[in-house]
């Protein structure tokens, strides 16, 4: 590393280097070599595209197969030529998913849980991140370490512990003050939303974001007599739109795709989210592959759409969290 740094200091300016490179040998030889170099480069680019294409197909084909199969009839998906396209587009599977599968109800539950928990999580995380970034107070480093520690406790490992808390939640669902006797917050909307109400990841993102903003606008507002809340609401919140978009996308996606938590908290189909409904649908409609593929697509469609329109923001969020 040190060697490269010293040689960088001795580097001639770029145009000069180019001239040195092309300046050797008679002109004809240069042209011949350049021709071969161009051919080699073209070959390399073609090879790169070939590899990239194969890789891309691995990621794309499963989704295309699911889509194509969902437009077949169950019979032709099971016994027909699976590698062929359907002779006509059959939308009956999507009808089955909603009429027989009860997906309208699951969709409602998923929407309520995801929207409400996203609003709560984004508000709380943005404010908390702002606090960590903009104010110094006793114990800040310690508290922020705790926030980071929660990043290392994935929701799945916490599912049973949190389930026990919901089951024994005091004074809810027939429980006594000591949390015994009833079912607590199980099989309720608050119980379904609990794990998504706060996110250490989101607080972390918000802190990183607000630390990157300058102090001066806030100071100026304070001199002008703004209260602390107005400093946040009028000065920094308008600047934080990209952050809020990213937090919203991640929060919504997390709540929407979660599987284990709704599986253990919802006691019946009336509180099944789409993911849980999909897994029971698959067990019930064994080998009805066209229906099952339609169900799998419906369960993921909203986040696929959000993703396609918001992928720029999502990718920026990932880069923020990992690259820096």
């Amino acid at each position, binding site marked *: 590393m040190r060697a490269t740094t010293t*040689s*960088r200091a001795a580097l001639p300016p770029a145009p000069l280097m180019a001239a040195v490179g092309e300046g050797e040998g008679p002109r004809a030889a240069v042209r011949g070599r350049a021709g071969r170099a161009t051919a080699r480069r073209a070959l390399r680019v073609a090879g790169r595209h070939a590899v990239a294409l194969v890789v891309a197909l691995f990621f794309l084909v499963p989704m295309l197969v699911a889509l194509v199969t969902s437009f077949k009839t169950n019979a032709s998906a099971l016994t027909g030529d699976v590698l062929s396209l359907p002779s006509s587009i059959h939308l009956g599977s999507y009808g089955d998913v909603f009429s027989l599968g009860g997906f309208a109800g699951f969709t409602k539950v998923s929407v309520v849980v995801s929207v409400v928990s996203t609003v709560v999580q984004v508000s709380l995380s943005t404010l908390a991140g702002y606090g960590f970034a903009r104010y110094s107070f006793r114990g800040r480093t310690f508290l922020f370490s705790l926030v980071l520690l929660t990043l290392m406790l994935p929701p799945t490992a916490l599912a049973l*512990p949190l389930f026990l808390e919901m089951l024994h939640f005091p004074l809810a669902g027939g429980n006594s003050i000591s949390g015994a006797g009833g079912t607590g917050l199980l099989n309720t909307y608050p119980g379904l939303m609990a*794990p998504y109400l706060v996110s250490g990841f989101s607080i972390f993102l918000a802190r990183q974001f607000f630390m990157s903003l300058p102090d001066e606008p806030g100071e100026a507002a304070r001199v002008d007599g703004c209260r602390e809340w107005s400093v946040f609401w009028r000065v920094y919140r308008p600047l934080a739109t990209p952050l809020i978009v990213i937090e919203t996308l991640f929060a919504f996606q997390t709540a929407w795709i979660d599987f284990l938590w709704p599986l253990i908290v919802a006691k019946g189909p009336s509180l099944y989210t789409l*993911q849980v409904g999909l897994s029971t649908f698959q067990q019930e409609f064994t080998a009805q592959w066209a229906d099952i593929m339609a169900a*799998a697509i419906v369960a993921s469609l909203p986040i696929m759409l959000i993703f396609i329109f918001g992928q720029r923001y999502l990718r920026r969020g990932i880069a923020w*969290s990992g*690259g*820096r």
Partner: protein
Amino acid sequence: MGPAVVLLVVLYAVPIVLDGYYSLTSDQFGGGGKFVGAGNYVAVANSGLFWRSVENNAIFTVLTVGGGTVLALGVALLLSGSFVGKGIYRFVIYLPQSVSFASGAVIWTWLFNAQNGPIDAALNRVGLPGPAWLTDPHLALLSIVIMSWWRDIGFYMVVLIAAIENVPQLLIEAARVDGARRFGVFRHVTLPSIRPAMLFVVLTWGLGALQMFTQAFIMTNGGPVESTYTVVLKIYNDAFQALNLGLGAAEAFVLLGVCIVVGVFAVRWFSRGLEHT
């Protein structure tokens, strides 16, 4: 900030304490639990299925994260720098991130199906025998690894691309001038510069792989012959199928302990990284 910290305590600290407490009881649904001391932990330690799950989890994590990181890095290198059309490739590779684990698992159950499933149909078409991906005990876990690569490589590719494109161009040019070839530049300039991102990938992905549940639950339900049984699936079955909350709580406590040990290490590394920014 107050409410967020209070909620973090309510949703993280309290459950962990409760879990520790109930792991020492024989709690069933509807109460009636007695204090049993370390009984549940003894049962966990003596459970062959638990250790089988740990083993499966370890193999799954090493294959998914080890193989996946190499693949994600390869794809990231392929699709960074000047390459016409890289945006489309990146988009397609990242696309499975928009599919839920449940949907992805259901779709791959169909792809891997041994009766008329698309993968085996395609293999038969070119004259190859189609293996029983999900019902062969030697293949089932690997099949889930493949599905997990499909779902997650895009995410880690984006992390690595961001890191690769942050490597100062001057360093790369300097190494070239010093006579480093393509691989030399990668080995001595790119790789050391993206070390923090690589650590992030391995830790995040590793912690995720230790929690694997949805794929095993939907695609194989732990079978065939327990070859895809994972720790979280064991917790789920003990607590919610056998209704033995105390035993499940003990297993969850062990899993949390592992996560916290890994987590403390990760946070220390993380805070060190933050000091540099």
